[in-house]
């Protein structure tokens, strides 16, 4: 099957190159299909020795060398196939390449054929009996099928569906290969499905998926800003480093080093020197250092300017000194291993970790000691690599020894070094970060037996440590009895964590590449939860080109904040902001309107350079010029110093100003020790960002950003992830169909079966908090927040509300989302509602109470905001639901498939019973006409509104959990 991949490769050749690649390595020619690999170990324990060279070779198309082949003839093997075989421990399940090839070509043909048929069907289905594929493209009716490109038609969703449904190994293998032709982000969306299939389904499916996964986990990429691409054939090593293009090729009896004229891009510098200052020889030396470092020589740490040229000579000299015939293979072996160090995952660390986490989570439902279990877990272990290290060497010592004979001195030396490095690192939870980028990329071990271990370990560790400590905090918090203690404890724990930052860590929920530099610990809050302790933290990050390779920012001590900016202006900024937070000062609109009476501290920051509070006062106040405010008095008081004329003020004015100032701040919440998150969540995000930025020693940096994340411990987020996927899918369907339904899927990171992280919804507070804090009905709250009925602001907020309620009504109906109390529904500052907590969906409902039988939650309060039962907005609401349902129905398969695949092997409560999928399918009502659907929507709305169970459930929640 390995060969099938290679030879079939129209898709493979689409392999997306590394995004930053300036000059991709010359790809070796594809080799003719080799005979099936008969030498694969028959024992289930992977041979570390044979895995080492292959593991070290990243790019899919490049040629690997098995240890055997390096001895004699050179039958190149596709690296991926070998990898996955070794990983899957399959000795006997190799698909006959011929068969696979044929099957795949068939599929391809069918796909093409069917493209030519003009088909009026709205949905594509696969009929399993013939394994023929009928497919349909939704958009191409007018386009005409003849011009259709198959790759355009065949999208990821389809690929996943085929993978899931096809029983034909050849088809599966083909589709596995086709995965390469999609963009990363497309496939990443389906990663949970892929992994779940990988873990729970037949071996064939797993085999089909694993090349993609493995390659993504292992592909060569860059050491930025200098991209090094390496491709290896048994006796040919090509190293290219851009912008200098250096090629090091090694053939059995000859090493040639060629340097091509270098491409200069003006803005980059090399180790702090401009490009032109760096003699080429040094760079060559560095390249060789990369290639050979610590394998044979130990000089990489020399200062560049002087030693490297000398050392370079040495390198060449030593290299030549090997007795040619005997030693080269061994040496080469090591070089291959050495090259591993500069390999980068195409998917990156995030991908690796994500995969590992998901694998862990999805494997958790399985019984121990099943073979499949070991597949998912094995891949996970391989990624995390902690366990691999001790268990592997004894696995097959003979094999390992057979290749290299006896370990060469360099072996031992390097191994030792590597060990000592590890020891040093293990002393601190986050390994030292402030080494030049190439230092970080360095792989230390040269012993082939542990080849994958140190690199992976090193690479993934900081991030894993961060996640571990965050989850650990969550677990510890859960043991504390009161919210207040939890909050204090959280702040303390985070401050300890802060000492270890910045580090090469990032928030997995974020879009952009960045490094975490600081956690403003006093801003963190514990969220409302009865017995768990989920908490929300804010994280300061510095954006960068690539978290893997960009240098980690240096620590700026907390104290430096005072020297970095004018201390006093800063403090005032902070405290003014605090005051804002505290007393719930004005939103920006308010400020614009009414700030004539209050000096705007934010703007006056720069004016304060002096130390004395009194002087500051004078300066600031002198700048404001309104006539009836307090600052006027201060100005007066200064002038009166000179004129000695008494100034009189009315006590009534002072009292009035006081109440006015206080009244100006209607939209904030009061601090409540039992609900610490309310205040934090209510503060507008923009204000929070600028406030925290003011107080941060990193705040002055341009690439400073603030992120937030919710850390959850003790909760299974797999259902949340499933819901997120369905929401995303529906969202894109509605977008595609131009139905203005509004929903907000929030990102979920599953870390294990009982922990994870959630991307918080910004500027949103729960309806419960709204009620408790404002003591107003929802309608009155809308009026308070957005102005009276006729204002533009209110109307748009109302529209937002309707669109979001419609969206979530559908979601709740389709997914049967339960536990809809007001603590689980958020209201954002633009009027949208957002449902959170999808802990009870599909077949599960809370404690199996008979409550909540209505289709979705539609309280009279909601209806009021929508303008009453007869209002236009309410009609609009129902219309939106109908349109949304029709659109969703059209793409039902895409939704179903997500859920269906996840049901595989899952013990999640939402899949309880046998009718989950059927029920979901039925709720799309494929058989109804649009008129009938309209009636259905009416019924649903009616039923939900009249449902007393909603009310009952709310009061039940109030009694049991105090949620209003």
């Amino acid at each position, binding site marked *: 099957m390995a060969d099938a991949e290679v030879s079939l490769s129209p898709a493979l050749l689409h392999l997306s190159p590394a995004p930053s690649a300036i000059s991709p390595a010359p790809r070796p020619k594809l080799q003719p299909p080799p005979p099936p690999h008969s030498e694969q170990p028959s024992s289930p324990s992977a041979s570390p020795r044979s895995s080492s060279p292959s593991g070290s070779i990243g790019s899919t198309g490049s040629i690997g060398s098995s240890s055997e082949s390096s001895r004699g003839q050179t039958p190149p093997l596709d690296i991926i196939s070998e990898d996955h075989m070794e990983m899957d421990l399959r000795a006997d399940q190799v698909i006959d390449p011929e068969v696979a090839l044929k099957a795949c070509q068939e599929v391809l043909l069918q796909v093409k054929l069917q493209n030519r048929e003009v088909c009026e069907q709205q949905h594509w289905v696969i009929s399993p009996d013939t394994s023929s594929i009928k497919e349909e493209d939704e958009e191409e009716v007018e386009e005409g099928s003849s011009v259709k490109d198959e790759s355009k038609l065949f999208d990821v969703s389809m690929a996943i569906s085929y993978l899931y449904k096809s029983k034909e190994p050849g088809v599966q293998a083909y589709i596995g290969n086709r995965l390469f032709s999609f963009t990363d982000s497309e496939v990443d969306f389906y990663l949970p499905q892929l992994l779940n299939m990988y873990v729970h389904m037949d071996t064939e499916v797993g085999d089909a998926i694993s090349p993609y996964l493995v390659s993504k986990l292992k592909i060569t990429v860059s050491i930025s800003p200098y991209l090094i691409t390496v491709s290896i054939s048994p006796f040919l090593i090509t190293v290219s480093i851009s912008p200098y293009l250096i090629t090091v090729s090694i053939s059995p009896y000859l090493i040639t080093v060629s340097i091509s004229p270098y491409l200069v891009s003006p803005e980059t510098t090399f180790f702090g020197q401009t490009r032109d200052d760096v003699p080429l020889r040094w760079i060559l030396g560095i390249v060789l250092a990369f290639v050979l470092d610590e394998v044979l020589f130990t000089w990489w740490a020399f200062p560049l300017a002087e030693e490297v040229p000398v050392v370079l000579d040495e390198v060449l000299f030593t290299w030549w000194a090997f007795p040619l015939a005997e030693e080269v293979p061994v040496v080469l072996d090591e070089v291959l291993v050495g090259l591993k160090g500069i390999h980068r995952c195409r998917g990156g660390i995030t991908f690796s970790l994500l995969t590992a986490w998901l694998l862990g989570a999805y494997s958790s439902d399985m019984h121990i000691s099943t073979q499949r279990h070991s597949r998912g877990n094995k891949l996970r272990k391989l990624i995390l690599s902690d366990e691999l290290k001790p268990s592997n060497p004894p696995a097959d010592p003979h094999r390992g020894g057979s290749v290299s004979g006896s370990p060469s001195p360099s072996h031992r030396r390097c191994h030792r070094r590597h060990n000592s490095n590890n020891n040093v690192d293990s002393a601190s939870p986050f390994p030292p970060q402030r080494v030049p980028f190439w230092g970080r990329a360095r792989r230390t071990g040269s012993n082939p037996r542990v080849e994958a271990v140190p690199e992976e370990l090193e690479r993934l560790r900081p991030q894993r440590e961060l996640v571990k400590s965050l989850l650990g905090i969550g677990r510890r918090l859960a043991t504390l009895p009161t919210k207040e203690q939890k909050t204090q*404890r959280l702040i303390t724990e985070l401050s300890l964590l802060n000492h270890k930052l910045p580090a090469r860590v990032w928030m997995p929920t974020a879009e952009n590449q960045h490094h975490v530099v600081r956690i403003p610990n006093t801003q963190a809050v514990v969220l409302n939860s009865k017995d768990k302790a989920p908490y929300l933290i804010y994280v300061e990050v510095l954006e960068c080109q690539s978290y893997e390779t960009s240098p980690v920012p240096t620590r700026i001590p907390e104290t430096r904040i005072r*020297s970095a900016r004018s201390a006093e202006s800063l403090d005032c900024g902070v405290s003014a902001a605090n005051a804002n937070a505290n007393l719930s000062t004005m939103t920006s609109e308010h400020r614009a309107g009414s700030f004539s009476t209050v000096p705007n501290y934010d703007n006056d920051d720069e004016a304060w350079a002096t130390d004395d509070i009194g002087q500051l006062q004078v300066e600031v106040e002198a700048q404001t010029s309104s006539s009836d405010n307090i600052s006027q008095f201060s100005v*007066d008081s200064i002038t009166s110093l000179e004129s000695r004329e008494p100034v009189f003020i009315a*006590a009534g004015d002072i009292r009035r100003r006081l109440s006015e100032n206080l009244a100006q701040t209607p939209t904030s919440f009061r601090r409540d020790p039992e609900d610490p998150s309310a205040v934090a969540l209510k503060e507008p995000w923009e204000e929070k960002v600028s406030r925290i930025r003011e107080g941060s020693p990193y705040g002055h940096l341009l690439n400073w950003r603030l992120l937030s994340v919710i850390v959850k411990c003790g909760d299974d987020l797999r259902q949340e992830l499933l819901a997120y996927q369905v929401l995303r899918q529906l969202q894109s369907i509605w977008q595609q169909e131009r139905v203005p339904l509004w929903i907000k899927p929030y990102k979920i990171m599953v870390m294990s079966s009982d922990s994870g992280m959630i991307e918080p919804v910004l500027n949103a507070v729960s309806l419960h908090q709204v009620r408790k804090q404002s003591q107003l009905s929802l309608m009155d709250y809308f009026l308070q927040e957005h102005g009276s009925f006729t204002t533009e602001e209110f109307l748009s907020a109302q529209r937002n509300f309707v669109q979001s309620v419609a969206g979530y009504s559908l979601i709740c109906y389709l997914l049967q989302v339960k536990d809809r109390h007001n603590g689980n529904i958020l209201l954002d500052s633009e009027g949208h509602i957002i449902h959170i907590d999808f802990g009870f969906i599909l077949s599960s409902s809370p404690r199996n109470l008979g409550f909540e039988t209505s289709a979705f939650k539609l309280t009279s309060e909601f209806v009021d905001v929508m303008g009453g039962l007869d209002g236009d907005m309410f009609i609009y609401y129902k219309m939106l639901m109908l349109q949304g349902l029709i659109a969703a129905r059209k793409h039902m398969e895409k939704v179903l498939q997500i859920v269906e695949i996840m049901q595989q092997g899952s013990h999640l409560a939402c899949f309880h019973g046998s009718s989950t999928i059927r029920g979901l399918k039925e709720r799309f009502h494929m058989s109804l006409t649009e008129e009938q659907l309209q009636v259905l929507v009416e019924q649903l709305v009616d039923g939900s509104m009249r449902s007393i169970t909603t009310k009952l459930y709310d009061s039940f929640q109030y009694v049991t959990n105090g949620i209003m």
Partner: protein
Amino acid sequence: MSQVEKKAGLLRRTSSSKKPLKEKVVLMYDEIFAKEDPAKNNPRFWDELFLMKVNLEYLETKLETVDGEEVQKIQDNINSLFHHCVQALGEEHQIKVVNALQTLCALFRGVHQKNKSASGFDIINMLMGFDKAEQRMKDLMERLDGLLCGEGSESLKSLCLKLLLCLVTDNISQNTILEYVMINSIFEAILQILSDVSSRGQHGYDAVVLLALLVNYRKYESVNPYIVKLSIVDDEPTLDGMGMVVHHALTEYNRQYKDKEEENQGGFFSTLTSMVGSMFIADADEKLSVQTNEAILLALYEAVHLNRNFITVLAQSHPEMDIPTTPTTPTPTTPTTPLGTTPPSLDMMNNPELPLDPNLQTSNLLITFLKYASIVMQDTKDEHRLNSARLCLIILTCIAEDQYADAFLHDDNMNFRVNLHRMPMRHRKKAVDKNIPSRPLVCAVLDLMVEFIVTHMMKDFPMDLYLRCVQIIHKLLCYQKKCRIRLHYTWRELWSALINLLKFLLSNETTLLAKHNIFHLALLVVNLFNMFITYGDTFLPTSNSYDELYYEIVRMHQVFDNLYCMVLRVSTNTGQWKEPASKVTHALVNVRAIVNHFNPKIESYASVNHISQLSEEQVLEVVRSNYDTLTLKLQDGLDQFERYSEQPKEAAFFKELVRSISLNVRKNVSLNTLSQDVLLKEFSTIS
């Protein structure tokens, strides 16, 4: 080496059994104190000397007994001894280093004891000789620096610090030898000790005390390099380390105090702890009155005062007993003798602390300090405590002036429960601790100030402390006004405390005036009210609180009336108080306006409605409805204050304080250096 050891051991044993037989080392000392060069007959004399166990007592008394003329004669030998001591510090054998260090201790102390009256130059001459002094001291400091920074034994480092403490506490302001310590700075070595977790645990206390004393060497007369250096340190771990040492010392004090308090109250738990306690702390008498630790307080002061970066350390929160960060080494925070240094063995009690105890409060240095201050301020009768209380208030003054500190004091996201200690008093029950709400830290500071104000109105009036106290409140108010922070604090307590203070001043006018300028204090207090009256709109939390302010003033109008009468009377007389008293009259303008405006209104309201006794709500109603007809006069500079400066105002206090601290430290150092058997044992096994 081992042979010599054995010999020494044998010798010792015999010498202890037969008194008259002199130790060999004593004989050698005698040789030094003879006029001859001891190395003349025995070229290996110095080598051998440092292999012997030092007999500190003998050496010291010997030095003390030599009189002036003899000194001249044996000066060469002593110079030579000093020289060889310094040389021996560089030896490989740690035994020699230990002995040399101890010999040096003895030399410094002996010489000093003898030469109390003599000038420092004589001492230098006697020990080193003028011509070589500079070089010798340079060598000595370098060696010590090397030992402190090196990888060597911890006991050795501790001994080095003791030697330095000996040196520093020696009559600190006139000790010319210290000039050399100034020139050859060991500042970096001290910082290194503080930045490293394990060494901080063992020597942090000594290092911090040493630093505090060095900073205070002739600080008003010359440029002290340690002041300069301390003020620019910005290395986080170091500053944290310093904070941690102070934190531990203060926590330990608080704990001891609490134990003692519980002990007095009896109960099963307290007897248990005291039993356990007495197992560890031998002298229970000492424990009965927990003494203040001024040395550590001085260090805290210098850090807060000199180093702006240290402020952040104050807010660095960690669990109350900071176990997780210093898991390996127990920190010597139990000064058995309060002002002195600590033997590192006493800390076993801290260890069993569980870091995950849910009852464990989160704490930070500032909280600990506030608790400490609340204990110290309770009783200011004895001089040590008075000094400590004064220093506490000075530190708080510095903190209140610092904008960054103010920022986190008022940070609404940093809420803490601070259990301040309150003096049990006749007219109030002991407050139940547990009900204190979690609030921004500034509330605790204000509570502490209020607590002080109400508890110290006594005959022996601590005027100075009151002034500081009121000024701290004023500074905090200025910050709140400037940044428009509306603190949810029960201001009423503060107001009534201040009014009571005025009342006390009035009723004790004659006795107080004999000693103090009470008008200054009265002016400050009245101006606090003026702050509230004229700027209340910028920082009061609710509109009701403004009404309450008026209510409180009107309710207590008698006090203000009396005060006005008194100051008017004094200011119309000629005398030294004329000027300050007239200031108070001017300051009272608004308060009097309020009283005169509202009193008739309230009375008429009462008579109209036929109520003899108005309820609070009724008075507030009257107040609310009559604001508009009241005109106030704006006063100048209410929101301005004089910044704290140590010189010249506080110079005398600090000089005296440093003197007493150094005396105490010295006393305790001497006790410890005498029992170095442990040390010797350690090294005899090493070599």
